[in-house]
């Protein structure tokens, strides 16, 4: 019985891993995967339903939707990874320092984070994206700023729990310098839940980025990212649903795969 359960979740993880690898391949070498150029407008083939020649159909410019999705993966991934890195690093460092130093610093930090947390993340991201001119940078900034609180709180909690363990007290008593304890003993031991969270954050960042693009705060580039694609296709939902459906399914599948892998990672790193 146990064996069966394990193999099921293993299979899920393997499929997810393969799918993520495929999307990564798309982002790195889109020309290798996509059958057509994403900017090629074949006006003779407008709004064609999915078929063998056009796997995901064609859009209102006559572009091959599959190729656009493949090429669009790059920007979607860049936004996801960059905002997790920015938000994670800033949030992580802030949270770790606050937790480690404690006292007034921690109190000030807590109030600041609480203020940030009273504003819903998507709203904050929206406000930032609207205030800045639409660009890849402002979207990344918007998402990372709005994700700082969650990272920093996790990091702070973890650091505090580790700080009070006996081995830290011992290092303290033998006169190890604070900075060394912080980096070597505290940070290195608190990163595992953080890593899990960052993995899951990748999924939600892509979702938020898609949302922002969908609401028209994205950028009009040569190749639209997934959210922009969804947004642009929605006017055609009745006559050519595939312009929306397939990018939507790809986002769904990708975020789902990230979540499954993130969960799996947690099992491995933190088997409690």
């Amino acid at each position, binding site marked *: 019985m146990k064996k069966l359960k394990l193999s099921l*979740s293993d299979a899920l993880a393997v499929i997810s891993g393969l799918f993520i690898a495929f999307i990564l391949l798309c982002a790195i070498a889109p020309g290798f995967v996509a059958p057509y150029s994403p*900017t090629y*407008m074949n006006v003779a083939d407008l709004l064609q339903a999915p078929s063998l020649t056009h796997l995901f159909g064609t859009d*209102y410019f006559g572009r091959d939707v599959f190729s656009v999705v493949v090429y669009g993966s790059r920007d979607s991934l860049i936004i996801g990874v960059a905002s997790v890195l920015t938000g994670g690093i800033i949030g992580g460092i802030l949270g770790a320092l606050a937790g480690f130093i404690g006292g007034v610093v921690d109190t000030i930090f807590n109030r600041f984070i609480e203020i940030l947390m009273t504003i819903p993340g998507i709203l904050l991201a929206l406000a930032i994206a609207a205030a800045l001119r639409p660009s890849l940078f402002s979207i990344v900034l918007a998402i990372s700023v709005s994700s700082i609180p969650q990272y920093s709180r996790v990091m702070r909690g973890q650091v505090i729990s580790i700080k009070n363990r006996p081995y830290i007290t011992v290092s303290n008593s033998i006169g190890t310098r604070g900075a060394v304890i912080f980096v070597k003993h505290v940070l290195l031991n608190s990163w595992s839940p953080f890593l899990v969270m960052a993995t899951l954050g990748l999924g939600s960042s892509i979702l938020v980025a898609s949302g922002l693009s969908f609401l*028209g705060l994205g950028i009009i580039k040569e190749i639209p990212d997934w959210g922009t694609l969804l947004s642009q296709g929605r006017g055609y*939902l009745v006559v050519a649903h595939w312009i929306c459906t397939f990018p939507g399914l790809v986002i769904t599948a990708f975020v*789902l795969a990230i979540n*499954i892998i993130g*969960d799996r990672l947690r*099992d491995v790193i933190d088997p409690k």
Partner: protein
Amino acid sequence: MKNNLASRILSATLAILLLALTVAGCAADKPSGTASDAGTASAAPEATNGTRAVPDETADPAPIDAKGGNLVFALATTPDHLDPHRAGLAVSTRVTNALFDSLVALDENGGFVPYLAKSWEVSDDYSVYTFKLRDDVKFHDGTPFNAEAVVFNFERLYNPETQATGNITSLFSGFLSGEALDEFTVQLNFSVGSPSFLTNLARFAFVSPAASDKYGDQFTRNPVGTGAFRFVSYDEDIKLERNPDYNWAPEIRGHQGPAYLETLTYKIVAEEATRVGSVESREVSAAETVPPQNVLSLRATPGLQVLEKLTLGLPYTLFYNFDKPIWNNLNVRKAIRAGVDIGTIVQTLYLGTYPRAWSIISPGLSGYDASLENKDHYDPEAAKALLEAEGWLVGADGYREKDGERLKLHYFDNSPNREKRNDIAVMVREQLKEIGVEVEVEISTDGYNQLVSIRGFDVMGNSFLSGDLVSSLRGNFYYTEGGFSIAHLNDPKVNAWIDQVASEFDPAKAEVIYKEIQQYFDENALTLPIYVFPYTVAAIEEVTDLNFDFLGYPVFYDTYIK
């Protein structure tokens, strides 16, 4: 390990839910009566679950009279005012036209027809207009429409307390005074004569003086006019009912006496697909502004019809910024024009539902130069040759350069993809890439960014709807006033022509000047006219005789539900 499977399932479920919400959020914007996706319909507050089998009662009344019925009309945006002197949006006029009447009406060619005025005389210099009024007209509140009421309305228009919109006040700039010569004769005096006052009078509505005094600035919530329909209420919807005393329709209408419709209700449905979907589900009888892709599918749907009327004025046009030195070169302008395949853009994006614009003014206006039609300038090889001749040579990355500077255009669009204007930008970018010109597209609907970009752009699109050509050409578009025109044009020849035509009382002579202007724009490739916007209405097939006036506004007077 015990909780792992559970937590995994839980998180996976949550992820799916989150996505479902995202998708539903997307779908809620675009529900449709025919959507096969059940989630789509149930997520939408106004959707009707796609049931076509049960038609709404309001849309399908039992006909007692031969002609009658109740019409529900879905508007795309919210009217700003129902006071016709304050209303600045076209959508408001679609409502106020049913409530109010004018002195003259325009027939389908823009000619003048008696309406509330039986006849009129115009002085030789077009500065004094004398109208003989009908003597049988009554406002909805029972007070008579007479010469005093006409004078009152003009005084009201220029009374600051009225807060009249500049769109209307500017129509009669130069208005001096109105005089009631007798009970049903009125004279209007203007300081400067203009041949376009009569055209503009066809857009000027008369409100009840008694009601205006009674309601003050609340008149806009309690409009009282002489129109074929009278106001009932404005809560969520705007409800009007038939005016049983109405007997003063202009003769260009299909009948005389009261309107056929018993009630006329306007619903505001901003979301495109919801609006179209509510016609498909027969929740409303008709809906305005149908996107091209839906026009095609609606035309093919039995039980539905699509009505349309080309709008008048300046078609959607791409303007160049002549403050930038590059545009002062005729060959570069010609090359860009030869590089843009307007025919393909219009056919691709509008699927044949919008006609292509060939001139700087729209067909249907007197003065339109039809000889420009089918004069396609698209020729990428010629475009390349012109650019080569000007010294713009293809560099290593495929884009043209001259003296180390790349040929790069900043294309600015300030619409939220209204009428697919963002998509035009995308297609122009791809087409100009073929001839080695880089186009950088910036889309921003934000006011501040617009202010910044309006100076920095190379290419920007705009359009203007109006039946009066002089004010269209003048209204900052091509005429340089205070050193500015939207087209960034400061051409003494064009300015002189516009001045000339503004004071030309002879329509035949004005027509000649208009044609000269259009030829000049075409020869010098000063702008890129793209498309003419058709006002579209989707309706259930029972809606009969829903007509449009000269300017493209719907006329509900002859309409009935079969």
